[in-house]
């Protein structure tokens, strides 16, 4: 029962992938023209008309770092709630108490982390 539909979606995605890649390859090889005399500026990176300066993959600041850390933790926790939400009618109010305690325990540090993350000096 769990494996229901896996064959269909697998064949569908495989069909999509093969047809899309085949289309791109056909266009690249047979349809799109080739420039016989390319100028050296043609393949330079686009920088609003200026001559490109320095490498394209520059160093960058990981701004908003507290949000990224919180995302790693709380995205996984959101998944745990799905198992509970699916069986909520069977569990009822008494069966939900551990999940609610779990949520409260997690929401307090989330509030503190948000308090820290919303200060710009911490970015």
């Amino acid at each position, binding site marked *: 029962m769990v494996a229901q539909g896996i064959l269909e979606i697998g064949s569908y995605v495989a069909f999509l992938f093969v047809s899309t890649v085949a289309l791109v390859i056909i266009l690249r090889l047979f349809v799109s023209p080739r420039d016989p005399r390319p100028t050296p500026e043609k393949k330079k990176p686009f920088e609003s008309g200026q001559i490109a300066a320095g490498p394209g993959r520059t160093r960058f600041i990981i701004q908003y770092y507290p949000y990224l850390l*919180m995302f790693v933790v709380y995205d996984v926790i*959101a998944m745990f709630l799905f198992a509970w939400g699916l069986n909520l*009618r069977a569990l009822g109010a008494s069966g939900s108490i551990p999940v609610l305690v779990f949520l409260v325990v997690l929401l307090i540090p989330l509030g503190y982390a948000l308090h820290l993350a919303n200060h710009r000096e911490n970015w």
Partner: protein
Amino acid sequence: MAAVLGPFQPIVDMLTSPLFVEIVLFPGLLSIAIIGALLGWLERKVTARVQLRIGPLYASPAGGILQMFADLIKLSFKELFVPENSDAFFFIMAPTTGLVLGAALVGLIPFAPGLQIANIEVGLPAFLAIITLSPTLILLAGWSANSKFPFIGGLRALFQQTAYEIPLWLSALGVIMMAGTMNLAQIVNAQTSGWFILPQALGAFIFLVTSVAEMERLPFDLPEAESEIMMGWQAEYPGVLFLAAQGPGFVKLYAFSALFSVMFLGGFLGPSFLPPLFWMLLKTLIVIVLIMLLRSTFPRVRLDQLLRAGWTTLLSLAILNIGITYLLVVGFPTL
């Protein structure tokens, strides 16, 4: 018939089998390509109407409806070159895979009873899990182009994902709690007594906002903000690859609007004098036009505004929605 065809019989059987017809014609590849192109035209037309312009006009039968097909033909005959020092394989494969992922979403949607490519038990989480990959592909596209604007756009996509991802999943959780199933066809059938838009009004609002952010459409189109970073991650794409980079936006618009009508608007349910497919497509079209109107109504948000709003306002509202849904489900078990 079988005797006449002889050795070709297996091929004819395969070509006329329901699964093959669904995969190739509707709701599969061909219909997705045509609907995606028509949505491109519709968006230009709706935006033009809002801004008191006319929009595409000349590639007609009616109102320039063939404009996107004309664009497709024009872009196909442009040179496909990759920029200097870029990673050509990933540069080409990232938007192509994005197109495949966008079209794969449509395969999970029930358009009518039985008219669904893959009826998976975990359809709703599978949909959201597939969509989670798309910011990674955008970062890959931006990184492989070896240019500054695409790279900034890719990083923005990554940061933006952290803002909307958790509210998106949690707003979908409300529907799962109400329906007691993750199967999309069963979620539709759970709405025979009433659409989920009423008990899940808050969840529907959060889902709409976060799905617009996921599709990277205005007001949340930070990775391709054309007035700030020159189309962002799409800046270096030539010819038909630019179309492949733009295409997933329209395919995802179609898939997300269909998912919204499945989750909150009762999907294919409706008065029986018209077929279920008609009601499904009508609801999808209404949601699509609503999302297109957001584009011409709101200005673009800043990245830090989006992160703060996503992590404080949207996340608190999503948790509040789960609390309300918990009280509804436990308090009124017959609902």
